[in-house]
């Protein structure tokens, strides 16, 4: 089959519909390796979109390549937990073995090695993606073998299967993970009760969104249900947000691996309540390996009459489609996710209007977290009264935590809301902990004197990440890792976030080079105040949280790096000559300049 035949086949499968651009680009790239200018022109013409829009989308996502990439593309997950497990040394060793500079494709076009944002394997790192396939638990031994396989150009599909094994690591089950529902049970209960009464149960159960913000699920569904569809394509949509991009979070990975039926059933219940016949699951690109198992789980449900027309003998019709993301943290924000579903760059929309009235294809849409939808099955089956007995008054039910970092048993822990940080630390075997990053970089960093605080919307709300740092860790480096993350993931739409995240990253790097002064600390606070108030969305608003928290709680980690008490320029005269030294091969005293401060 020629390239154009292949592209045509992909386009036809997607009805030459531009709103399906993300899926078209991914499938074509999986075949061709990259998206050449000619390929983009061909696709743009076929879907009838301006070419600039197609290239605009292709260039937005980290996992799309508009320039040739190596036949082997190795991406090291670069969350702080991967760092703590030694990914930097491993990546360095890999580059040396392959005679590579990070980020550069080798001269022969064979391989490139680079970093990527957290791939959702913090409980079994250091993790890599090779040609977008997840590999866990990298070691020096594995690395040597991998370099050999790359050199011999062995296809990734023939690499040792155990490298691709992803463990669930479920350590504590509560009502959700220990459920005994059979597929269809929750949905039958919902159908029997009808949409209005099911909505009533969800509201009475006081279910709140598990993505971190904690908005009432019942109110969201109700607003969506009450909103009118518009125009010829009038419809309601259910979107499951499985773009689990917050570094240190991996609970959705486990839910989609071993509890997919519960998630799909929750989507169906949401569909019944809001009056939708179509559901979309937006799966992060890092979880590409889950696509086939999820597709087959959907097929099984269709065969069992749990999806499709006349579900379980009623007139309820609902089906689910899976869309893959392509490496963009911002798509976890619900309106950016919808933009991505429509084939566009993941740029958060101006709100209001909110997705419940103007969502996917401008139609009423409810966007819910994977865990929220799964939890709705428990309420549909057992009722609100039973559900609300668990957890606290304001935070009913349970929360799944993704525990990683310095502890003996990283993995998945489900607790009723209200559990103390102490308890979690004890259960996961963490000793001498100095800090826990709750809910990832955009969340909150708490110090030892706060370990009595509780996981609940009224105290410590969380999307699930729980990263533990023992007393040997440098909390400045933790914050610096997060600053780099936000600078990489800022969508670039609004000025404070686009430029601010880079300024913060540069200031943190300056302090790391021992060039900082109290002046730079003041600058960090100033940027925090600006970005928190003026940014377009939550990314920019929370991007300085880790810096702000560590500055307030771990000030000595910064101060011991500050050499001067006055202003210190970032510009280092001697360092500026390093390129000239490299080019001339000189390193004698005459090739060095002393800085004024030292002179």
């Amino acid at each position, binding site marked *: 089959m020629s390239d154009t035949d292949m592209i045509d086949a992909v386009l036809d499968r997607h009805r030459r519909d531009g709103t399906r651009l993300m899926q078209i680009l991914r499938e074509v790239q999986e075949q061709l390796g990259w998206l050449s200018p000619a390929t983009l022109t061909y696709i743009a013409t076929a879907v009838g979109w*301006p070419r*600039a*829009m197609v*290239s*605009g989308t292709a*260039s*937005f996502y980290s996992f799309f390549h508009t320039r040739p990439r190596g036949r082997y593309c190795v991406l090291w997950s670069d969350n702080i937990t991967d760092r703590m497990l030694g990914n930097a040394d491993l990546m360095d060793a890999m580059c040396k073995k392959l005679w590579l500079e990070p980020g550069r494709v080798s001269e022969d076009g064979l391989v490139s090695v680079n970093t990527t944002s957290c791939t959702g394997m913090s409980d079994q790192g250091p993790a890599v993606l090779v040609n977008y396939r997840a590999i866990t638990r990298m070691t020096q031994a594995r690395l040597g073998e991998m370099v050999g396989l790359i050199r011999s150009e062995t296809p990734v599909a023939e690499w040792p299967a155990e490298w691709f094994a992803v463990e669930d690591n479920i350590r504590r089950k509560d009502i959700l993970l220990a459920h005994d529902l059979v597929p269809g049970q929750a949905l039958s209960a919902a159908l029997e009760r009808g949409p209005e009464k099911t909505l009533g149960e969800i509201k009475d159960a006081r279910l709140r969104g598990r993505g971190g913000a904690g908005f009432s699920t019942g109110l969201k569904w109700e607003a969506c249900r009450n909103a009118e569809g518009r125009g010829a394509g009038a419809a309601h949509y259910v979107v499951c947000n499985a773009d689990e991009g917050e570094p240190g979070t991996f609970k959705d990975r486990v839910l989609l691996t071993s509890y997919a039926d519960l998630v799909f059933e929750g989507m169906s219940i949401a569909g019944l309540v809001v009056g939708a016949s179509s559901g979309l699951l937006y799966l992060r690109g890092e979880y590409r390996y889950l696509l086939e198992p999820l597709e087959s789980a959907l097929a099984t449900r269709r065969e069992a009459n749990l999806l499709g027309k006349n579900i379980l003998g009623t007139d309820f019709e609902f089906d689910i489609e899976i869309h893959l993301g392509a490496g963009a943290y911002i798509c976890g924000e619900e309106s950016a996710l919808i933009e991505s579903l429509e084939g566009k760059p993941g740029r958060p929309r101006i709100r209001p209007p909110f997705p419940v009235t103007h969502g996917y294809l401008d139609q009423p849409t409810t966007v819910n977290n994977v865990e929220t939808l799964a939890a709705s099955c428990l309420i549909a089956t057992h009722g609100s009264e039973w559900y609300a007995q668990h957890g606290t008054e304001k935070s009913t039910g349970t929360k799944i935590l993704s525990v990683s970092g310095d502890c003996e048993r990283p993995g998945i822990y489900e607790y009723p809301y209200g559990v103390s940080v102490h308890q979690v630390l004890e259960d996961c075997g963490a000793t001498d902990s100095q800090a826990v990053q709750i809910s990832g970089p955009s969340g909150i960093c708490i110090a030892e004197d706060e370990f009595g605080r509780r996981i609940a919307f009224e105290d410590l709300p969380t999307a699930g990440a729980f990263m533990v740092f023992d007393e040997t860790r440098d909390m400045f480096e933790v914050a610096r890792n997060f600053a780099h993350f936000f600078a990489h993931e800022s969508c*670039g*739409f609004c000025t404070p976030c686009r430029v601010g995240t880079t300024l913060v990253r540069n200031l943190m790097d300056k302090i790391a080079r021992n060039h900082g002064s109290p002046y730079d600390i003041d600058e960090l606070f100033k940027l925090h105040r600006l970005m928190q108030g003026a940014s*377009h969305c939550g990314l920019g608003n929370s991007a300085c949280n880790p810096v702000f928290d560590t500055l307030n709680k771990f000030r000595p980690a910064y101060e011991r790096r500050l050499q001067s008490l006055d202003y210190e320029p970032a510009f280092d005269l001697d360092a500026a000559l390093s390129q000239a030294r490299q080019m001339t091969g000189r390193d004698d005293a005459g090739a060095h300049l002393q800085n004024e401060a030292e002179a």
Partner: protein
Amino acid sequence: MNANNIFQLDGEDIPFRSGQTIMQAATHHGAYIPHLCWHPDFAAHGSCKLCTVKVNGRFGSSCTMEAQPGMNVENRTAELDDKRRTLLQMFFVEGNHFCPSCEKSGNCALQATAYELKMMSPHFDMFYPDRPVDASHPDILLDFNRCIMCSLCVTASREVDGKNVFAMGGRGILGRRIHINSESGLLADTDFAVTDRAASICPVGVILPKRKGFAVPIGERKYDLAPISEQAKETTP
């Protein structure tokens, strides 16, 4: 106009029509809220964040926020202008802006706003990005060094010219840029014309007509004659 439809902007009564944003009502009234990406002819883009105001004590973008009766809007306070100055400095360091040699000097909304807000220096280290110019088109020069990502050319080309010559693409500080609607990425290979609305919409000096330099001497240009804040009503940057 409903008599109750009045809000307070720095203590001044501003009347508005239902559905108008704070920015629309203020501009219509002749009151100046600093802005770069907003243009009265188009829907709000909301990216520059220069128009950030405090509404009943909370920050918001005045170009996207609907006016409501009785709102108390803070605009030209020391706190807000200080934030705006920092945002302007961000623009100046993320691009390559050399005002003295720029044909747009004196007609440039970025420069005029920086004067208005008394920005004395770029403050931060310059990023010096590599942004090649596109001189391929016979009548138009594109100098992306000055781009402030306002998307006005994208909107004007799409909505007025019906051409879609431009699109915003890429991500973040390194990636985000204007994409040109041709496989070569060159303006010459599009149907762009010097008479397009998009050719005259740029608030800074990215989109410039060729063979027309300094026709109006510096010192006699739009913002040389009066500061931008005094041209709120007629200013369409």
